């Protein structure tokens, strides 16, 4: 029987932990940026954000747009490029404990994605709904659109793509095959950008009103429904986590029949030994 001590050094055992500190750091950064952006929007949207042709609008809003788009593109490309560059080229020799840790990292990334999804799809989107009902706009680049379409959606896309590329480059089952649910969850946010183009073209051409439930907006709904495939992705992730969280040194069938009190409990870095059989 193999013990932990006999494992190859490259696969040295460490109990898997979710990357809580890094995750909270990323979340704190994201929440700070969203909050600061929202305060800026709240302060300037109705003062210098009403007339596209004014100098103030160009200064306070268009400048922000011209800065944020390349910054977000560079940041997204940089993170994805780094994940690809540092990909695991020996996935066939990946230790189960390390694989489990990477699943926790993936779940952490998906949780960040979930929070971005909420912020972008709810408060940021409905700021636009409220804005349209008290203004008559003269541009596609309104203060709420600049935050929603050219900041929120790109961040949303980046969050989805980062998690997808991480899974493709570090987790064997996602590297060998393509997860259709995961692909759909990523494709939805990505395809929102072309739909933004259609939406704005339609509003400048044949549908001036901004009723939120209007048919011109239903393309966004359809793309939002891509996230319904998150259930399939969750099943794929949980199925593998269940396999990886089986305890070494135990018989899976008998253990399942015994319940948790019948399991051996060992400390980390101790050799795992088979327990003697015990009659009921």
């Amino acid at each position: 029987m193999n013990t932990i001590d006999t494992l190859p050094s490259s696969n040295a055992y460490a109990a898997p932990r979710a990357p809580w500190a890094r995750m909270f750091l990323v979340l704190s950064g994201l929440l700070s940026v969203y909050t600061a952006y929202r305060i800026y929007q709240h302060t300037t949207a109705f003062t210098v954000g009403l007339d596209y042709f004014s100098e103030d609008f160009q200064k306070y809003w268009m400048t922000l747009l011209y800065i944020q788009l390349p910054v977000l593109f560079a940041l997204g490309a940089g993170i994805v490029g780094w994940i690809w560059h540092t990909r695991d080229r020996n996935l066939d020799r990946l230790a189960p404990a390390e694989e489990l840790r990477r699943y926790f990292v993936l779940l952490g990334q998906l949780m960040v994605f979930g929070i971005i999804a909420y912020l972008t799809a709810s408060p940021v989107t409905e700021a636009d709904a409220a804005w349209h009902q008290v203004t008559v706009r003269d541009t596609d680049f309104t203060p709420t659109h600049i935050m929603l379409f050219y900041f929120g959606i790109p961040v949303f896309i980046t969050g989805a793509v980062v998690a997808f590329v991480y899974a493709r480059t570090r987790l064997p089952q996602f590297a060998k095959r393509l997860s259709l649910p995961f692909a759909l969850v990523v494709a939805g946010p990505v395809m929102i950008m072309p739909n933004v183009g259609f939406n704005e073209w339609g509003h400048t051409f044949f549908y001036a009103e901004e009723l939120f439930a209007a048919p011109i907006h239903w393309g966004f709904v359809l793309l939002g429904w891509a996230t319904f495939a998150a259930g399939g992705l969750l099943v794929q992730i949980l199925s593998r986590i269940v396999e990886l969280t089986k305890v070494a040194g135990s018989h899976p069938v008998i253990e399942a029949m015994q319940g948790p009190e019948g399991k051996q409990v060992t400390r980390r870095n101790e050799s795992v030994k088979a327990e003697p059989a015990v009659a009921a």
Partner: protein
Amino acid sequence: MKVDKMPLPPAQTELRATEVGLTSAAEQHRAYVQADLLIIPLIVMLFMGIFSFHFALLVGDWDYWVDWRDRRWWPLVTPLALTVLPGVFGYLLWEKLRLPLGASLTILCLTLAAWISRYLNFHLFADFPMNFVWPSTYIGLGLIIDCLLLLTRSFFWTGLFGGFAFGLLVYPLNWPLLAPFQVPVELHGTMLTVADLMGYEYIRTAIPEYVRIIEESTLRTFGEAVTPLTAVFAGFLNIMNYWFWLWIGYLGSKAIWIRKIV
């Protein structure tokens, strides 16, 4: 139940540390807790985001404004759009995890997201009064669906009775909140409701006519029969609607792997 352990050869009976991720039951427990701590907030955040987005773009104005909660479209559009996530994720949570929480949890998430957004966006940002933009209440509908699922353990019966009740009860459930806004008032010789009057006072620039009475056609002369008629019609439609979205949930929860896209 306890059983005798069979003394089989170790190579066949024991999971090795090279094959599995953990070495003890305590570590297994910690791993499960960590997975829960990651997955539960993820699900809640996704439900808040997806449901809010979906509801805003399909129901939107019917739920944003108190005067839009009319007797023709609001009780019909609302349950049809509101059933989608309870159907899709209700299937996932019940079929895969045996949790009868799909409807209650998704609607609770929508409610939370709606209150945050109405306060931050419609009240603080756009300056509408909260009693003009408060979100309707739907949690009771979710509880009915989930309780029926728990009791019947059948999507068929849940859809038949729960789906129907879901459509039927949107209006009565909200009536205690809505009634004060339906009190008649007279303005310049025309009879309006309080909600209509608020709509006149707070002009919404993106509504096609800027100001209008939301209920159109001969509806305003039809008396009391309109509301129950719409509610029953919505109930019948919603039975099939619930079953349809359960099927979408079945498709969405499939763990499908493919070799390549093209």
